[in-house]
C-alpha cells in the first residue's frame, strides 16, 4: 500500500465520537497540535443528542439533584478520576459543561445546560427523558412558561420519527397534568412519498415552501405547545426552529429522537467545534499499527482504503468507543489489533450497582469490559504497568459503556480529564 508523507502532532486522538472530539477540542484550545483519526458512524451520531451528566444511582431520588457525596464514594472510575485530577466534581462539572455548551453554540447548536440539575424532555416514543445538557429547542420545560400547558403532537405524514397516535397510546392523553392531543399533517409539497428518513425530510424542509406549509399547519392547532419530529439539520436548526416559533407564536419544540437528526447534529457540531479550535480531523482512516519505544507509544500507521500514513506524536488519547463504536469487538473481551497492546478488563467490583439491573449477563459483560486506566487516566499495557503517554477516554473505558447507563456526560467528563493529563506530557 502506498505511503503518504508522514506527519507529526503533539497529540493523536483515536476515535472521532463525542469523547475523542471533545478531548481534541480541549487540547487544541490549549494550543496543542492535535489530529483526530476515526472511521465509521459514531455512537454519538446514533444518540439522542442530549447529555446526561451522570448515572441515576447518584442522582438523588428526591427530585433531580446530583448527590455529590454518593458520586464521590461510588464505584470506580468516577471517584478515581476526580481524585487523580486533583479537582473536585463541583469544579470539574461546570467547567467541562460550560466549555462544551460554549463550543457547540459557536457551531450553531445552542445548548442549555445545568450541570447539577436535569431537564425534562419528551421522547418520540412517549416516554419522559431527563438530562443535564440539551439542545434549547428540545427542552419540554419551556411549556411551563406558557399559561396553557396543553400540548399538540404533530406528526408529518411520511416522516417516520413521530407517530402521534402511537405516542398517545403509549403515554396517555394526559402526561403530568399536561393535556396531549395527536394530530397529523400532510405537507402538500412533499408529494406522494410514502415514507421518509429523517435526512430525507431534512433535505425537503430546507426548502422555504415546505416550511411555510408546516407553519400554516402549526398555526391551525389550538394548543400553544407543539411537538414535532426533528426536521432540521445542523445548518438549518437554530434558524428553522426559531422561525417556526416566531411565525406561529407557539412554543414549538422537538422530541428527543435517537437514530435520527439530533445525534447527527451533535456529531457535526462537535466535529466543527474541534476543527474550529484547530484540531485536524482525519476522517475515514483506521489505525493499522502502533509503534512503541519502551513505555511510550510514539507513532501510528493510519490507513485509508488505498493509502497508509505514519503519524508521530508525544501523547495519545484513546477514545475508540465500545461495542457500538466498533472500538472493541463483540464478545467484550476481544480487542482489535493494534489496540490489544493495552490492558482490557472488567472493573473488578462485583458490587457494581448495575449488575442487579442487568438482564443479561453476557450483555453486561460486554458493556462492562473496556480499557483499564490508572492514575492520571493513563492506560495500562498488557502486563498491567502504566503506559507513560497514552490516556483513555469515553465509552472505551471499563464500565463507561453507554448501555450501562453512564450516559454521554460520563464520556465527556473522562475526555475532559484525559485531555488535561495528555496536555501535561505533550
Amino acid at each position, binding site marked *: 500500500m502506498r505511503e503518504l508523507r508522514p506527519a507529526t502532532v503533539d497529540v493523536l486522538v483515536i476515535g472521532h465520537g463525542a469523547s475523542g472530539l471533545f478531548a481534541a477540542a480541549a487540547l487544541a484550545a490549549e494550543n496543542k497540535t492535535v489530529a483526530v483519526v476515526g472511521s465509521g458512524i459514531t455512537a454519538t451520531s446514533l444518540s439522542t443528542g442530549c447529555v446526561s451528566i451522570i448515572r441515576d444511582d447518584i442522582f438523588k431520588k428526591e427530585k433531580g439533584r446530583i448527590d455529590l457525596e454518593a458520586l464521590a464514594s461510588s464505584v470506580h472510575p468516577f471517584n478515581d478520576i476526580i481524585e487523580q485530577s486533583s479537582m473536585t466534581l463541583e469544579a470539574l462539572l461546570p467547567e467541562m459543561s460550560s466549555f462544551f455548551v460554549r463550543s457547540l453554540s459557536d457551531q450553531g447548536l445552542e445548548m442549555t445546560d445545568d450541570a447539577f440539575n436535569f431537564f425534562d424532555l419528551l421522547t418520540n416514543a412517549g416516554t419522559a427523558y431527563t438530562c443535564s445538557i440539551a439542545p434549547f429547542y428540545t427542552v419540554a420545560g419551556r411549556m411551563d412558561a406558557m399559561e396553557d400547558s396543553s400540548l399538540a403532537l404533530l406528526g408529518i405524514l411520511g416522516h417516520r420519527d413521530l407517530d402521534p397516535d402511537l405516542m398517545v397510546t403509549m403515554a396517555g392523553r394526559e402526561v403530568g397534568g399536561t393535556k396531549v392531543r395527536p394530530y397529523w399533517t400532510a405537507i402538500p409539497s412533499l408529494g406522494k412519498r410514502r415514507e421518509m428518513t429523517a435526512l430525507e425530510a431534512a433535505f425537503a424542509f430546507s426548502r422555504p415552501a415546505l416550511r411555510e406549509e408546516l407553519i400554516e399547519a402549526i398555526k391551525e392547532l389550538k394548543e400553544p405547545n407543539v411537538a414535532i419530529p426533528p426536521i432540521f439539520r445542523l445548518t438549518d436548526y437554530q434558524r428553522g426552529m426559531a422561525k417556526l416559533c416566531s411565525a406561529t407564536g407557539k412554543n414549538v419544540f422537538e422530541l428527543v429522537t435517537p437514530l435520527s437528526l439530533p445525534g447527527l447534529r451533535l456529531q457535526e457540531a462537535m466535529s466543527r467545534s474541534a476543527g474550529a479550535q484547530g484540531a485536524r480531523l482525519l476522517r475515514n482512516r483506521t489505525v493499522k499499527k502502533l509503534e512503541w519505544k519502551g513505555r511510550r507509544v510514539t507513532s501510528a500507521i493510519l490507513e485509508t482504503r*488505498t493509502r497508509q500514513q505514519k503519524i508521530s506524536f508525544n501523547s495519545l488519547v484513546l477514545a475508540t468507543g465500545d461495542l457500538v463504536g466498533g472500538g472493541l469487538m463483540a464478545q467484550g473481551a476481544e480487542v482489535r489489533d493494534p489496540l490489544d497492546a493495552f490492558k482490557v478488563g472488567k472493573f473488578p467490583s462485583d458490587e457494581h450497582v448495575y449488575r442487579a439491573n442487568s438482564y443479561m449477563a453476557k450483555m453486561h459483560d460486554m458493556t462492562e469490559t473496556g480499557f483499564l486506566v490508572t492514575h492520571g487516566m493513563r492506560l495500562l499495557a498488557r502486563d498491567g504497568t502504566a503506559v507513560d503517554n497514552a490516556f483513555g477516554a469515553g465509552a472505551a473505558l471499563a464500565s463507561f459503556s453507554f448501555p450501562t447507563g453512564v450516559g454521554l456526560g460520563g464520556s465527556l467528563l473522562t475526555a475532559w480529564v484525559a485531555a488535561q493529563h495528555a496536555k501535561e506530557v505533550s
Partner: protein
Amino acid sequence: MADLASNGCIKCGACVQACPVVAIDGLSSFSGPRTIAVDAVRFGAEIDQLRDHVMRCTTCWRCGDVCPARIPLPERILEVRRAIFNQELALGGHSRIMNNIDRYRRSVEPAATVPAAGKHTEGQVLYFPGCIAENRLPAILEASVSLLHKAKAPFRLPAKWSCCGAPLEKVGDWERVRMLREENLRAFDKYETLVTSCPGCTTHFVQNYSLQPLHTIEYLYEAVGPRKLAFEASKKKLRVALHHPCHLARTVGPHAMEYAAEILQRVPGVKLVEMDEADRCCGGGGGVVAGYPEVALSLAKAKVRSAIEAKADLLVAPCPFCVMNLSRAGGIEIADYTTFLNSLMK
C-alpha cells in the same frame, strides 16, 4: 447469494440515513443499502425485482463508511449487480457502455478529435487520461498535460490503452473488467509512477489491478510539493466551492481532498467557501447517469444548490464524471480541478 449474508447488521439505519439517493429519490424508489445488501440477500429476494432499486445506487460508498458493523455494503451492492448482469437484466443505458467497450475500448464513443500526446512519449511518470478526459472533456486531458509539464514531471502518455474497467465493474460486467485489465497491464510498459486524473480510474487500478497509482492531486502534493507550485498573480477574487468526489474522498482517501483544499488555498485570489455536505454524491457515479438520468440530475441539482447557497462563484470538482454530471444541472459555473488549477499556474 446466501454466502453473502450479513448477519452483523444491527438495524441501526445509519446506511439508510447516509444514502444520498434515498434522500433525493425517496425510499419507495430506492429502498436503500440495507434492504439490498443485507435483507435481500438474507431473505432471498428475486433478483429481477431488485434491479430497479440496486441500479439507482451511485456507489458513493457513504453507507460502507458509516456502517458500525463494518458490513461492506457497497461491495455487496456490486455483487448483487453482478448477479443481475449474469441474468442478462442489464439496463439499456448500460448496454451502450458495453458496446462502446467492444468497439472502441472506451466506455464512451470516441470524440472526433482527440488531443495529441505531442512530444510526451518518454518519461518515468505514466499519465493515464481515462475515457471521459479523452473523449468528452478533452480540456481535462490538455490541462493535465500542461499542468504536469509546468510541474516539471517527467511524464508520458501510454501509446495504447483501454478503459480501466471501472464503469463495467459498477454495472456488474466482470468478464469485460478482467479482459480490460489484462490488456492494460500488457500495454503499460515500464514506468515508476502511474498518474490518473479520474478518481474512478485511480481506485480501480488499486483495487482491481493491485497497482499504486496517484491521482493528479496526490502527485502534485506528494511528488512535487504544494510549495513548489507557482501561481499567477490574482486577476480577480473568486469564491470557490470544492466538491468532494466520492471515489476520491472515500475510496482513494480523504487525504486527497485535504491536499486539494490546501493547494487551492495557496492560489492568490481564491477563497474556498464551505459548502453544505461537500461530500454528498453529485450523482455522476455508479452507472446512474446512464441508467437513471433523472436521479443523477436531481443529485447534481442538489449539489449545485449547496454551492449557490454557499455564495460560490464556481464549483470545482476533481473528477471528470462529476464535472460532466454537474454541468447538466446548470445554475453555476462548473470547473474541473485540474483545468482550473492549470489556468492559474505559471
